[in-house]
């Protein structure tokens, strides 16, 4: 029987197998950030265990960083302390760190691909569930807990049971105005938030084959929102062209040799998956969420369903919505364009293209937060910043920002925020805040109109 893309990468990294138990999986690259690493560093120190492979670790500060005045000392004492600890830990152990203000600083899932750290065929982990993003390159990438961060520090390995395999295929052509974000929100709305639990997902079919790397990253990013530990897309010319020439990408003949290997990774035609879903691209429309988990999504023109279930009612109560009503024309005062789901240059290009020549609605506070310093620089270089400013938008400095609202970027209680991030849990963007997930295009349109509109009616 043939092997899947996942099998090929996994099997190439198994160091050992315990009988009737987990396997020892070798980890090529370990990404760390300030929030989930300090306790792991402490643990190793307490147990007197050295860091095994410091040169396979890359650190950035992103979750807890301000998006204004990054050159000034951080006001919040706890946040400042967390960043200080990260710097100290990295210095002490000789770990490469792109700290706040560094030209390569950014959200871990934006900066690593950008620097060519993320490559096909690799295993890559980070103490962050959206590590699934890197699977867009045909890497096995997944989020881990802090105990596992300590395990990788100590041994560059993890003890894991091989997950089952799942494939989601989308064939056909996407309609105008339907972005990668809509594709993944649609998939999750159809299969649910735990359809992927225990599985690693591969996305296949024409839609993903034609997608840009940025789009593939948006899709793989939200694999965790359907419960899957990670998502993958077979590496192809789009992938190779993206990786080529980046700072940490292999060079010259080594690159060619790697590409030859990467080309062998695609799933064999006779491989069998434990579970498969297939969708037709023409069914997908711009999406929006109305509830408090990412599976509670509808096509923007649809009405909120009626479901008789206490958890469903609790969720609608929190959001202040009623079953059976439409989301269209709901006034919105906050818009967030950012997060590791949608803060890459392509997302800002898309938003700028729509915004150009228009004005932001007066009632709207809009935060545009690039995913990295490199994206920020590109926004400026391509003239997008000027477009945003002319339309009345504020461009902030890179970081996770209002995606999880650990810093000052919090949505006030009771307010709605149309957000390009990945989670609409209660209080995710601030205590009492109500998050509505959507694509960068829908977010941009909301900011211009001050309310939710049917974007499909506005595309010429």
């Amino acid at each position: 029987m043939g092997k899947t893309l996942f099998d090929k990468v996994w099997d190439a990294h198994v160091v050992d197998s315990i009988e009737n138990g987990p396997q020892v999986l070798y980890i090529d690259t370990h990404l760390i950030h300030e929030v989930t690493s300090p306790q792991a560093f402490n643990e190793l120190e307490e147990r007197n265990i050295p860091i095994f492979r410091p040169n396979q670790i890359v650190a950035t500060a992103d979750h807890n960083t301000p998006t204004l005045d990054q050159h000034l000392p951080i006001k919040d004492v706890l946040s400042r302390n967390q960043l200080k600890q990260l710097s100290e830990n990295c210095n002490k152990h000789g770990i490469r760190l792109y700290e706040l203000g560094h030209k390569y600083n950014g959200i871990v899932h934006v900066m690593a691909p950008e620097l060519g750290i993320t490559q096909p065929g690799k295993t890559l982990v980070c103490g962050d569930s959206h590590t699934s993003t890197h699977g867009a390159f045909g890497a096995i990438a997944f989020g881990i807990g802090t105990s596992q961060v300590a395990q990788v520090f100590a041994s560059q390995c993890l003890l894991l049971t091989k997950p089952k395999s799942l494939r989601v295929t989308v064939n056909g052509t996407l309609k105008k105005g339907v972005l990668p974000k809509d594709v993944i929100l649609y998939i999750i709305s159809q299969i649910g938030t735990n359809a992927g639990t225990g599985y690693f997902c591969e996305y296949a079919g024409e839609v993903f084959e034609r997608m840009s790397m940025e789009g593939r990253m948006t899709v793989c990013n939200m694999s965790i929102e359907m419960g899957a530990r990670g998502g993958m897309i077979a590496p192809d010319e789009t992938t190779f062209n993206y990786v080529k020439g980046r700072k940490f990408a292999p060079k010259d003949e080594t690159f060619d040799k790697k590409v030859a290997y990467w080309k062998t990774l695609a799933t064999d035609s006779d491989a069998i998956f434990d579970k498969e879903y297939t969708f037709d691209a023409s069914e997908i429309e711009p999406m929006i969420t109305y509830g408090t988990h990412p599976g509670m999504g509808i096509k923007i023109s649809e009405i909120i369903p009626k479901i008789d279930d206490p958890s469903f009612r609790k969720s609608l109560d929190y959001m202040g919505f009623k079953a059976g009503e439409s989301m269209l024309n709901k006034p919105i005062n906050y818009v967030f364009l950012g997060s590791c789901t949608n803060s890459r240059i392509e997302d800002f290009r898309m938003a700028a293209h729509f915004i150009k020549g228009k004005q932001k609605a007066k009632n709207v506070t809009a935060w545009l937060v690039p995913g990295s310093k490199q994206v920020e620089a590109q926004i400026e270089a391509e003239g997008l910043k000027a477009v945003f400013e002319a339309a009345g938008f504020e461009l902030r400095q890179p970081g996770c920002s209002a995606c999880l609202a650990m810093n000052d970027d919090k949505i006030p209680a009771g307010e709605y925020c149309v957000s390009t991030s990945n989670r609409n849990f209660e209080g995710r963007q601030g205590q009492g805040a109500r998050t509505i997930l959507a694509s960068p295009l829908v977010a941009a349109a909301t900011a211009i109109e001050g309310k939710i509109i049917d974007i499909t009616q506005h595309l010429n």
Partner: protein
Amino acid sequence: MEKFTKLTSTAIPLEVENVDTDQIIPARFLKATDKEGFGDNVFRDWRFTKEGKLNENFILNNPNYRGSILVTGTNFGCGSSREHAAWALVGYGFKVVVSSFFADIFKGNSLNNGLLPVQVSKQFLALILTRLKENPNTQITVDLENQTISILETTLSESFDIDPYKKMCMIYGYDDIDYLLSKKDQIEAFEAQKI
């Protein structure tokens, strides 16, 4: 890590589905650099109102319900990878979480912190919840060695699955680091032959 073999306790029924890690421990409490104190903030925004008052409607604040077992709806622990969620539950005093379904990363994090996730059938979960609602003093026994969960003074019982390796770790209080360190030679040999 603390050892776990068998536990009998009253339990707290949290009848909510899809409890995500942002509810278990909100992000604003993640600024600490040690593992202490998270128990004080477990389910913070459900336990307290926006004004900071105790929310009397929330089950953890109901004086009739006590115990080190949390019984909860399906897909518990979805969302972020933050191990702080497990630390918060352990810090509050929970030793077992019972649900009909656990999110992957949460499950692993719990096992790494001596918090036992017990996955039961939907029917058995409904049974326990009903019993607990009828009688808050209902006692539940979780026997890891035999992999069973039973409602005391009844014949209601079910067996549960656990990875055999993880079961041994829980029973002996081992963690994965000890095991991985013992494999160092093999790991180095693997590195040497890798392309």
